[in-house]
């Protein structure tokens, strides 16, 4: 199948790009075929985000989005920021300026964008995983979806269907944070080296959406906390946002450069909910959905060159999250718009092969660049600890705004930041009470995650002996603690020896294992399409 533009990932960036291409086609009376492949069962199934949304890119895409019924309805009404200790919540001045922003479900917004894209003639195919980049003489010429109907033992089942090649004159990778094909392309074309960027750094976000009692619902209420339950060496914080329909989004984000292999982001989140100032906000309510996803924290210092022969990286596949603002949807969409505008120009000219080089220039001249540049020193300052971090953030935020000619560097990559387990003690996490805090499998059920059971595991080990030789011995089997889906378990075998069991069916596609595994032995690959979580309100 041949298209003018093939886009991998029906998220904010991918759909913004697809929509903009079709809008330009309508305006300039040209025809371009645009295809979007999405590994989730539906558009929006794999979308998870806080989310306090800055509508600037949506307004660029659809100036009349309000009239068109975009699910962006609850303006931020209160903006609170607390420093937590185990018993207290100390209000601090809010570093955010959320006036004019909205509390939304990004999954819902993306679903809406999907319908708009289809109305404009974009072909969207959910349920298909792009598993391979197609090259022709060092140029990306498209992608291939993976074969479906292969059994666990590798044999073809009766339902076997060979994957399809989707070729495009241009290919845009919009897979989100730590995209499978994006990482391959970044390595192949040395895109970080080309831009002089540092490595990317990440955080893992664990989130629930609760339905609370009417009396507790304050639409537009936005709360962020730092401090407890995380210690001063672990970067992260929580969020609690009141959406429409008595729904409250709440979660904890933990930076993946944490050092203690006994840390479990999931258990930290469960603990957080029991804080005396947080618990009352949720009591009497019930959990509607659960999920987890990693996000980029590298900011400006980690942006790779976003253009390669035959295509470009857009959205979180490149990494445009403004970490201090904790917003990335607006920059993701803007990058999609810029790539689409460049692609349209190039494809209309008809010069083959089409080149997206000016997209890289447009990025550097856009507000994405200004915004990320101004915020660049804040996250790296936390490498020195919570208090120095807060001090530098305050200085940067209120006074220097990134204008001083210094750029702090990131510390070691996340996978090298974990210390060996003998330097740490196991953390005694409280048992779930089943009312506010829950055991992981109960939560996992609320993510609607599932995969066709009879397929090869999509989580590959480069060396199958390493988990027992290295992870278990040196790091106390840390993957069994950071995975928010209990994919990794160390179980005694017939000889009572602990061996790694991979429950690939549970996977939430968060990519934490691909990022955090100290020997970088775990490789996340795409499972059969339509597997994974089923988020609708995340």
């Amino acid at each position, binding site marked *: 199948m041949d298209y003018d533009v093939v886009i991998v990932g029906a998220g904010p960036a991918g759909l913004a790009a697809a929509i903009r291409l079709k809008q330009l086609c309508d305006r300039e009376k040209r025809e371009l075929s645009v295809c979007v492949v999405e590994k989730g069962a539906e558009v929006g199934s794999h979308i998870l985000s806080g989310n306090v949304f800055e509508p600037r890119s949506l307004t660029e895409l659809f100036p009349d989005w309000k009239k068109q019924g975009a699910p962006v309805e609850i303006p931020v009404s209160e903006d609170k920021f607390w420093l937590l200790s185990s018993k207290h919540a100390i209000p601090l001045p809010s570093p955010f300026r959320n006036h004019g922003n909205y509390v939304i479900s990004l999954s819902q917004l993306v679903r809406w964008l999907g319908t708009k894209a289809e109305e404009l003639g974009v072909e969207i195919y959910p349920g298909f995983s792009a598993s391979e980049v197609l090259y022709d003489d060092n140029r990306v010429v498209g992608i291939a979806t993976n074969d479906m109907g292969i059994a666990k033992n590798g044999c073809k089942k009766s339902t076997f*269907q060979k994957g399809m090649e989707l070729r495009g004159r241009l290919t845009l990778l919009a897979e989100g944070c730590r995209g499978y094909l994006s990482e391959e392309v970044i390595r192949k074309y040395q895109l970080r080296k080309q831009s002089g960027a540092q490595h990317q750094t990440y955080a893992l976000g664990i989130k629930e959406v609760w339905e609370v009692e009417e009396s507790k619902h304050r639409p537009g209420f936005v709360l962020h906390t730092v401090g407890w339950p995380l210690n001063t060496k672990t970067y992260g914080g929580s969020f609690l946002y009141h959406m429409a329909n008595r729904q409250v989004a709440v979660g904890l984000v933990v930076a993946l450069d944490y050092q203690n292999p006994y840390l479990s982001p999931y258990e930290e989140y469960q603990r957080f909910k029991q804080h005396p100032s947080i618990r009352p906000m949720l009591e009497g309510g019930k959990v509607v959905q659960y999920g987890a996803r990693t996000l980029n924290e590298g900011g400006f210092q980690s942006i790779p060159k976003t253009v390669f022969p035959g295509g470009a990286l857009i959205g979180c596949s490149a990494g445009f999250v403004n970490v201090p603002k904790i917003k990335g949807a607006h920059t993701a969409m803007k990058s999609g718009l810029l790539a689409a505008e460049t692609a349209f120009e190039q494809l209309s000219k008809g010069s083959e092969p089409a080149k997206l080089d000016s997209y890289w220039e447009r990025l550097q001249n856009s507000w994405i660049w200004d915004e990320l540049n101004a915020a660049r020193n804040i996250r790296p300052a936390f490498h020195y600890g919570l208090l120095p971090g807060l001090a530098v953030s305050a200085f940067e935020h209120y006074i220097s705004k990134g204008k001083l000619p210094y750029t702090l560097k990131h510390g070691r990559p996340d996978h090298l930041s974990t210390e060996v387990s003998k330097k740490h003690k196991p953390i005694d996490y409280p048992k779930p009470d089943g009312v506010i805090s829950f055991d992981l499998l109960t939560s996992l059920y609320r993510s609607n995650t599932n995969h066709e059971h009879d397929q090869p595991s999509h989580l590959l080990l480069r060396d199958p002996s390493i988990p027992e030789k290295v992870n278990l011995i040196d790091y106390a089997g840390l993957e069994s603690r950071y995975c928010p889906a209990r994919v990794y378990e160390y179980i005694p075998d017939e000889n009572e020896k602990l061996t790694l069991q991979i429950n690939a069916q549970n996977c939430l596609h968060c990519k934490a294992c691909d990022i955090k595994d100290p020997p970088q032995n775990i490789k996340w690959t795409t499972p059969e399409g*339509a597997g994974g979580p089923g988020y609708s309100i995340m």
Partner: protein
Amino acid sequence: MSMNPFCEIAVEEALRIKEAGRASEVVVVSMGGEQCVETIRTGLAMGADRGLHVITQDSSSLFPLAVAKLLQALVSSEQPRLLLLGKQAIDDDCNQTGQMVAGLLGWPQATFASKVSISDDKESVCVEREVDGGIETIQLQLPAVVTADLRLNTPRYATLPNIMKAKKKSIQRVTPEELNVVIGSDLEVLEVTEPPKRKAGVMVASVDELLDKLKNEARVF
């Protein structure tokens, strides 16, 4: 991509019957709001020839009897020789529609099918049914109603080229009024409750105490 699993099995069986040369056309039907269109498209992408969408204001008033009456009306205009349904929907678990429509039409029915074979002369169908005691094999004159159970087949994946082709296949829309069927709310949902939470177990000190509790509290005997 959210077709009721038993219906998916029914669609797959219909496609296999057509591919074996025993049928000339497979028509997929769904009833309800706009979401039905996606479900019908999935059926078309699997290989069905055309779709029929009975549009109703909201799907919650479509209890099995209403669906059966609508199917009866469609059958009189479409004149199919075989009506294949999933044995039940996984939202209400009613397991009634197939049986009711067979009753309304006066057609023979074979429910919980685990194997379906149309005869060479296409006048009858032999069905193996999964029943409590084992497998029952019956033969029915066509036209007939068959409802699909889990082990009947494994549905095929809708491939990307077929999904693309399906966008061009036709879906005819029709309302209950056009079919002369009045959808009444013959059922009223009074209450939906979760099952009671399991109470903690009680430790008993002796066999006598156990027997006493079994007799007087649990009333087992």
